[in-house]
């Protein structure tokens, strides 16, 4: 196995699926020859598969999503890219009212097998319109599946599963992990949706988080181990379907839970997880479920401000210490 980046793992997954199935194609702004995607995920694919199958679009987010819907219901397997997750705000109708609801409102007549790739998160100092984490909007939209890979291995396995799924999949990436390297098999593998991964086993407290926060949580777990605090870290990998079992089992073991995401706190995915866990593991909880999130503000530009905005290791460690 060779070490490759999250970016290249994604590209491998996309490429394998395009080789496997002629109906898979990519569309989005600057995904093609001249740029290869704002984060270069699709770089090289237009050269290999042609500009027809790796298709640059106008700056028309709602039409990109809608065209993916129309193509999906008539037999294609579109992988649409919205350059920044913040910009899905322009495509909410096609994503949430059309893609998500079509199978249902047409009584099962239509399948909408599309993948919508986009990227969330701060840390790049690109301010309020290019740094948000909006996965909660989609988790609250019945009919959408949601993948949230934090590791290269998962990125490859999940994108392939997403493309083969008969239903619309929101495939969310994170800016700060594109360059992260890790061993990824060159051969084909699929990662089923709805299976969380215990990234580190522990006995005292469970930490559940997404995207870059998984990496921070693992660092914190390592640090706290020195103080004799044993932290279990769970990475859900998909939000819909959600692997409740792995989480609840862990909480029943540790009795304590800290949730960590980069979202602004109120109404984040962590609220849902907290609600579920207190419902389903009430008698096992020895302390309130703690939430570590960004504050309820837009994402600021200045590095000093943005660093304060994004949860850091200290805040995660503090939350853990508060309840163990």
């Amino acid at each position, binding site marked *: 196995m060779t070490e490759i980046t999250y970016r290249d793992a994604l590209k491998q997954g996309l490429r394998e699926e395009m080789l496997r199935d002629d*109906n898979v194609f990519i569309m989005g702004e600057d995904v093609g020859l001249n740029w290869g995607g704002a984060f270069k995920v699709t770089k090289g694919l237009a050269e290999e598969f042609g500009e027809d199958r790796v298709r640059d679009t106008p700056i028309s987010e709602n039409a990109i999503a809608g065209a993916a819907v*129309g193509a999906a219901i*008539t037999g294609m397997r579109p992988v649409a890219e919205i350059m920044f997750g913040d910009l899905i705000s322009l495509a909410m*109708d096609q994503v949430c009212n059309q893609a998500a609801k079509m*199978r*249902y409102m047409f*009584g099962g*007549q239509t399948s909408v097998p599309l993948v919508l790739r986009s990227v969330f998160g701060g840390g790049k100092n690109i301010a309020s319109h290019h740094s948000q984490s909006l996965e909660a909007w989609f988790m609250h939209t019945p009919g959408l599946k949601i993948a949230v890979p934090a590791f290269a291995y998962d990125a490859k396995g999940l994108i392939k599963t997403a493309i083969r799924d008969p239903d619309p999949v929101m495939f969310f990436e994170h800016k700060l992990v594109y360059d992260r390297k890790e061993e990824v098999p060159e051969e084909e593998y699929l990662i089923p949706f709805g299976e969380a991964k215990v990234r580190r086993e522990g006995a005292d407290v469970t930490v559940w988080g997404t995207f870059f926060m998984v990496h921070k949580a693992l660092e914190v777990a390592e640090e706290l181990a020195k103080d004799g605090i044993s932290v279990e870290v769970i990475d859900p990998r998909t939000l819909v379907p959600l692997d409740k079992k792995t989480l609840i089992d862990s909480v029943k073991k540790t009795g304590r839970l800290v949730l960590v995401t980069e979202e602004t706190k109120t109404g984040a995915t962590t609220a849902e997880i907290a609600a579920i866990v207190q419902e389903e593991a009430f008698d096992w909880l020895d302390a309130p479920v703690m939430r570590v999130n960004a504050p309820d503000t837009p994402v600021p530009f200045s590095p000093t401000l943005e660093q304060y905005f994004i949860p850091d290791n200290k805040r995660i460690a503090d939350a853990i210490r508060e309840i163990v």
Partner: protein
Amino acid sequence: MAVKKATLVDLFTRTLKVRLFEEKVWDIFGQNLVPGTLHLYLGQEAVAAGVTVALKETDWIQSTHRGHGHVVAKGADMNAAMAELLGKKTGSCKGKGGSMHITQFDVGVLGATGVVASGLPIAVGAALSAQMRKTDEVVACFFGDGASNNGTFGESLNMAAIWQLPLVWIVENNLYAMGTPITLTCPSQNIADRGEAYCTPSVVVDGNNAVEVYEATVEAVKRAREGGGPSLIECKTYRMRGHSRFDPAKYRPQDEVDHWMGRDAVEIIKNIALEQKALTEKQAESIRKKLQKAVDKAGDFAIKSEHPAPEEALDDVFKEAI
């Protein structure tokens, strides 16, 4: 272009079929059997008829909130369509969609949508798919004058134009969006002007004349099938009723109403067919009877059908429940 006699009969039949279907719906609605709201297609039948007669079975249409006419004209099963309006289990969407989402996919209806103008990008995608799958399928996308003011209009027209997609845009300009006259919301006389801005050949036709609609569609479909890209056809037409269920449409000037009521789509195509000797009065009458019977049957079927079981509300979110 000389339209074949058989085609005139087809145009007459489809126009009338939609008319009778809608009258039946209105009748059942009056009996308080149709839940929710309704956007009747009465008055605009020639558009759906003219367009769909020019299409092949393998072609697609994208419908709107005012969709009964489109799907019936495209060949939807009338029993299932009527049952859908009544929210029955036997409806084409199992009662989950109703009037605004009435859809029969297997006869080439991509979908009916409650969000004005949201069908346009979906039609773009279907046309792109037709092109990429190297088929000869063409997509006809219906939408209203009001829809042409929504952002998706420009995005979709542009995408279809740059990719030269096999698409025909059908604007049903019935002069109103709910109670808002088009003069309040559109600075030009014709929506068709906007098509030209996207290098899309655009024409204006009499939307109450099924032959005019048909001829324009034939030309557009031919262009689309030959790889010549999208076209736009603006059909000037008029609602015979209000916008939705209880709207008496008092906001429309009486002379305007009178003018259009005198231009009945069924009468117009019937007279053309009679003049061209494609049809005799007697044949027309026998067609009407046959259609009426089918429509009545659909009404009975719908009324007698069962309601879905409550828990069916949980099905069909995903292909496999998660």
